[in-house]
């Protein structure tokens, strides 16, 4: 049978495709979205990009809190005269069809005035009339067409951030001044001795002075600030010689034109600032749709339903939850606070917290910890602790989350900058002393000339362009870094530590083994029919395994929550479930995740569910082992110890049953012997990721929510981690090569400066020439390295 693909979302339809309007759909959800689109004249959605849709969500109750006007008012960006504006984050935005559809939202509802998509940020800004429309209706509408917005506690009370565009303004000012000053200094470059031009020299010079004023006092402001703060903390960073260079350039040029001795260096001055800012601009590029600063607030819902003693339900912001309140958790909702289970069957998925996807069954009176997700059915909890004091959220009170890693780290540029500044000042004072003895009139000229020509423009540009480009190249390969400093830190890693569940393994139970007596086909049929009725995730996994078997009608069926299933067909009884339920207690293997089977004849055997390790992990470890110490930190029990020992190279340290705070402490221990790279995924790794020198979060889908980290990696790119580390090391070598190259320019320039023959035209040639050649060298060099390392990867 040909494999049918859903016309809406492109997923495989399986055996039970739905036919509608001559097309196949994988589910009713997709079919409904299609019919909404066709009824509203939006079929162009399917023409722009084929099979671009997403299935709609199913849980509508989740958004009841949007009825609470107080909460809505904290979410909207603008609210006046019956018009509201809201910016919603929609993770499913992925193609041009999405943009087109969302910007035509007003065709789906007359009250929507306007919708504008910001694709890089995956956000949509909607303006609507509140007369017969509300935020809740909007969210439900978006959800029903497959664009469910993500509203989390993080959005709550956050007023629209003003975008920082100051760098663009500065760049504009510097570029504008640079261009004009260049034009105005042309007559002087060619030394036209023409009487007519000569006569107006003064006008040209003062115009150049005027143009350079905003550059010196506005565009270059950051460099003085950074140099001053560096000096205050007794660090000679690269901005010190830059700030010194700019100041001296400006003063010397001003004095020159006042005294009429020359045209000054305004062209070099404005050019310098322009190129430096360009470097910053290039480095600044970040991944707008990823957030590297997340904490528990991006996972948690904004509001919960509180049940009063009289049984009335009310939606309240989660900050208002008090100890002793009763709250309602619906299926697929995240538990925001620690609480005691009062009512309902709890099937809690703690994968957000631990990375472990196997759900935990809890019975009445058990304590449920914040961060878990209820899978099916409604729960009622009695709150034990308010949000900020719950087990998981307490982790964030650790001081490690307030620390800024990058400020403590000295970049390669800064360490060079220190030596460079000392060298420049030495040369300047030596040359000045020489000229003071030899020819006093030239001494000041030489001193300023040395500081001008030595201004480390090219050095300051080498790192932004090399690392900025490296950042981009890594991003294309599925490895997204927070900023360029992470590349430098990554190159210096001594110890690599991995989380197990969700990082080394895939997040679903992929691998099922059967151990014990062979099951007859009738037993298998019975098993399949029994499992069919159960919603337990283990049952679902097993059910998937028995696809070839038939379904029989059972005479009797019982489910005992949290233990297992029992069924009867004629005289045969089948029990499926935990070891204690089925009647066996095998102490040896209790650590495994297993489903036991027994019939009236006794125990038959068990299905062992194993985590599936990602492909290429063993290879990655043996590659990394050559250069660094390795360790695995797992929150799980020791069940997988033997498998790991077999798979990973000797000497890899394996630590099991680590709690989130313990992981953080472990990292601290490791840091005593070197720089630590932590690779993790869940919220339980958040502390370890923050403590480590480089924390990388691995995910199958980068749009889901990951803990705060320095880099986000697509799971498919994980086996290449050693390649990325290698690449960052090579990038640092490239920066050093750039430094060497720019030093050559400096030496040429210094020759002119020390001998007292620095003409503005020489500075005007050297400055852009060195800058542009460094930029070209850095960019082409990283591209070459990337191509080389990719070839290297293919050879493996």
């Amino acid at each position, binding site marked *: 049978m040909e494999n049918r693909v859903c016309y809406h979302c492109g997923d495989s339809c399986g055996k039970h495709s739905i036919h509608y309007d001559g097309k196949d759909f994988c589910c009713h959800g997709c079919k409904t979205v299609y019919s909404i689109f066709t009824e509203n*004249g939006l079929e*162009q959605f*399917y023409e722009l990009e084929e099979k671009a849709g997403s299935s709609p969500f199913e849980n509508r109750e989740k958004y009841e809190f949007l009825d609470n006007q107080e909460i809505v008012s904290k979410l909207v960006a603008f609210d006046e005269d019956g018009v509201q504006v809201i910016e919603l984050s929609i993770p499913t935005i992925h193609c041009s069809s999405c*943009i087109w559809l969302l910007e035509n939202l007003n065709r789906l509802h007359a009250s929507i005035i306007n919708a504008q998509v910001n*694709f*890089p940020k995956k956000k949509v800004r909607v303006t609507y009339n509140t007369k017969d429309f509300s935020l809740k209706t909007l969210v439900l509408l978006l959800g029903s067409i497959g664009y469910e917005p993500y509203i989390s506690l993080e959005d709550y009370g956050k007023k629209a951030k003003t975008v920082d565009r100051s760098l663009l303004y500065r760049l*504009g000012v510097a570029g504008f001044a640079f261009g004009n000053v260049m034009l105005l200094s042309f007559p002087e470059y060619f030394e036209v001795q023409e009487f007519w031009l000569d006569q107006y020299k003064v006008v040209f010079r003062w115009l150049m002075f005027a143009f350079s004023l905003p550059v010196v006092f506005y565009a270059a402001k950051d460099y003085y600030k950074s140099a001053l703060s560096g000096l205050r903390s007794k660090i000679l960073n690269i901005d010190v010689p830059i700030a010194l260079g700019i100041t001296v350039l400006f003063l010397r040029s001003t004095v020159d034109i006042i005294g009429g001795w020359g045209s000054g260096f305004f062209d070099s001055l404005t050019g310098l600032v322009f190129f430096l800012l360009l470097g910053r601009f290039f480095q600044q590029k970040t991944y707008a749709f990823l957030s590297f600063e997340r904490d528990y607030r991006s996972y948690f819902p904004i509001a919960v339903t509180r049940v009063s003693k009289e049984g009335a339900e009310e939606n309240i912001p989660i900050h208002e939850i008090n100890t002793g309140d009763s709250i309602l958790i619906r299926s697929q909702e995240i538990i925001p606070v620690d609480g005691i289970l009062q009512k309902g069957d709890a099937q809690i998925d703690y994968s957000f917290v631990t990375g472990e996807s196997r759900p935990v069954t809890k019975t009445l009176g058990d304590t449920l910890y914040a961060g878990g997700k209820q899978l099916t059915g409604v729960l009622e909890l009695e709150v034990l602790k308010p949000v900020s004091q719950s087990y998981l959220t307490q982790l964030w009170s650790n001081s490690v989350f307030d620390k800024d890693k990058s400020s403590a780290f000295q970049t390669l540029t800064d360490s060079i900058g220190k030596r460079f500044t000392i060298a420049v000042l030495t040369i300047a004072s030596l040359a000045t002393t020489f000229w003071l003895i030899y020819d006093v009139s030239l001494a000041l000229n030489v001193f300023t000339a040395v500081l001008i020509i030595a201004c480390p423009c090219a050095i300051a540009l080498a790192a932004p362009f090399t690392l900025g480009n490296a950042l981009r190249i890594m991003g294309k390969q599925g490895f997204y870094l927070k900023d360029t400093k992470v590349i430098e830190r990554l190159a210096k890693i001594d110890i690599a530590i991995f989380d197990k569940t969700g990082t080394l393994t895939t997040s679903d139970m992929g691998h099922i083994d059967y151990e014990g007596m062979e099951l007859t086909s009738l037993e298998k049929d019975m098993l399949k029919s029994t499992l069919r009725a159960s919603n337990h995730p283990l049952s679902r996994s097993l059910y998937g395994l028995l696809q070839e078997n038939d379904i029989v009608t059972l005479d009797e069926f019982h489910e005992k929550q949290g233990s297992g299933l029992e069924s009867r067909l004629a005289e045969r009884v089948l029990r499926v479930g935990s070891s204690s339920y089925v009647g066996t207690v095998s102490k040896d293997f209790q650590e495994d995740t297993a489903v036991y089977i027994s019939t009236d004849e006794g125990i038959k055997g068990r299905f062992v569910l194993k985590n599936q390790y990602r492909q290429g992990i063993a290879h990655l470890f043996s590659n990394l082992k050559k250069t660094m110490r390795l360790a695995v930190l797992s929150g799980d029990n020791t069940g997988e110890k033997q498998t790991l020992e077999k798979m990973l190279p000797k000497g890899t340290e394996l630590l099991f049953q680590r709690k989130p705070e313990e992981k953080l402490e472990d990292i601290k221990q490791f840091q005593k012997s070197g720089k630590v790279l932590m690779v993790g995924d869940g919220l339980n790794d958040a502390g370890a990721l923050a403590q480590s020198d480089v924390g990388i979060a691995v995910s199958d889908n980068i749009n889901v929510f990951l803990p705060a980290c320095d880099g986000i990696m697509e799971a498919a790119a994980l086996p290449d981690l050693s390649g990325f580390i290698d690449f960052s090391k090579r990038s640092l070598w490239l920066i050093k090569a750039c430094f060497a190259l720019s030093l050559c320019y400096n030496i040429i320039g210094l020759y002119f400066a020390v001998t007292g023959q620095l003409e503005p035209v020489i500075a005007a040639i050297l400055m852009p020439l060195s800058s542009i050649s460094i930029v070209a060298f850095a960019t082409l060099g990283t591209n070459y390295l990337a191509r080389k390392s990719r070839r290297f990867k293919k050879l493996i």
Partner: protein
Amino acid sequence: MSVIYVLLTISICVAIVFFIAFLLSVRAGQYDDSYTPSVRMLFEDEVTIQSSDETSKSNPKI
């Protein structure tokens, strides 16, 4: 003779006009999102075609 002043004034004025245009465009947020407008620009035409033959859209193209 003082035509150079006139020329300089004009050239600088023109430059400043463009500079102000740049500042205004930054302030208006034109550079905040450099990707979406490039896609949106391509939609405009198709949407008008779509709305003009809205009545005869019974058989959508695949």
